[in-house]
């Protein structure tokens, strides 16, 4: 018990001389300023990245949607394109060119949506990492 009190007393009186606080603070402030600079840089990059993704996303939807509308507006009995070759797979493609083009365009739109969502998640993860 007495020893416990002595240990407590020993630590109560523990007031060591520290190195110069001003120098310590200056060193710390320099590091924190660097962190802020990196954060600012990163915020600008994320902003630019987001803008680019948004532009690509909107362009993909508009272009894809327009293309899809054009394809659907063409007469159903006229093929969109012909190969001019009498090879059965090509003839099949020519006959179903409208549906195949619509399917490919839809896939392109879906891909642009998924890519935009992935990028959004990636940016969120970078933000949550601390910087």
């Amino acid at each position, binding site marked *: 018990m007495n020893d416990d009190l002595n240990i407590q007393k020993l630590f109560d009186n*523990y007031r*060591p*001389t*520290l*190195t110069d*606080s001003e120098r*310590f603070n200056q060193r*710390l402030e320099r590091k*924190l300023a660097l962190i802020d600079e990196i954060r600012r840089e990163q915020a600008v990059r994320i902003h630019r990245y987001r803008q680019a993704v948004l532009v690509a996303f909107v362009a993909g939807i508009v272009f894809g949607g327009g293309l899809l509308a054009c394809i659907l507006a063409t007469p159903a009995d006229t093929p969109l394109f012909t190969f001019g070759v009498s090879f059965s797979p090509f003839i099949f493609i020519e006959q179903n060119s409208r549906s195949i083009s619509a399917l490919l365009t839809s896939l392109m739109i879906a891909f642009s949506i998924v890519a935009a969502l992935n990028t959004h998640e990636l940016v969120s993860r970078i933000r949550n990492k601390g*910087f």
Partner: protein
Amino acid sequence: MTREQFIQIIQREQESLRRFLLALCYGNQDEADDIAQDTLVKAYLSLSKYEERGKGTAWLYRIAYNTFIDWDRSRRALQPLEVLAERTDNTFAADRDFRYQTLYMALEELPPKERSAILLFYIKGYTIREIADIVGATEDAVKKQLSRGRDKLKTLLKDE
């Protein structure tokens, strides 16, 4: 929170943190200062967590403890065992505050976890539950560390 606000908050706790780390590094000022700098940088990076946890300082000591443990681990990995074994007591003599030479020598003999528990308990006045939270251990484990550390300290300080 801005950098200036963070520095204001830290200034209140900074000396206490540095004293704690100085004891944890058994008087080696350079190492204690480096760990304190790393701790405060990490604290700045995780400010959002601090804001969620309110105004206590245990979070800062948790970062300090983890930083110290990481630093101790890497130091052991970098330094060959023979060097650690052969290290004499006056290795850091120039840095050591003469008044606390005996205390530092005794603290040096304690394993890092026991030393941390002892210092959080006696210097910072944290409860066993708070220490358990800081070091990420159970309350029973902290009680054992404290008891073992206390016994070793008593013996070592009596020998001096």
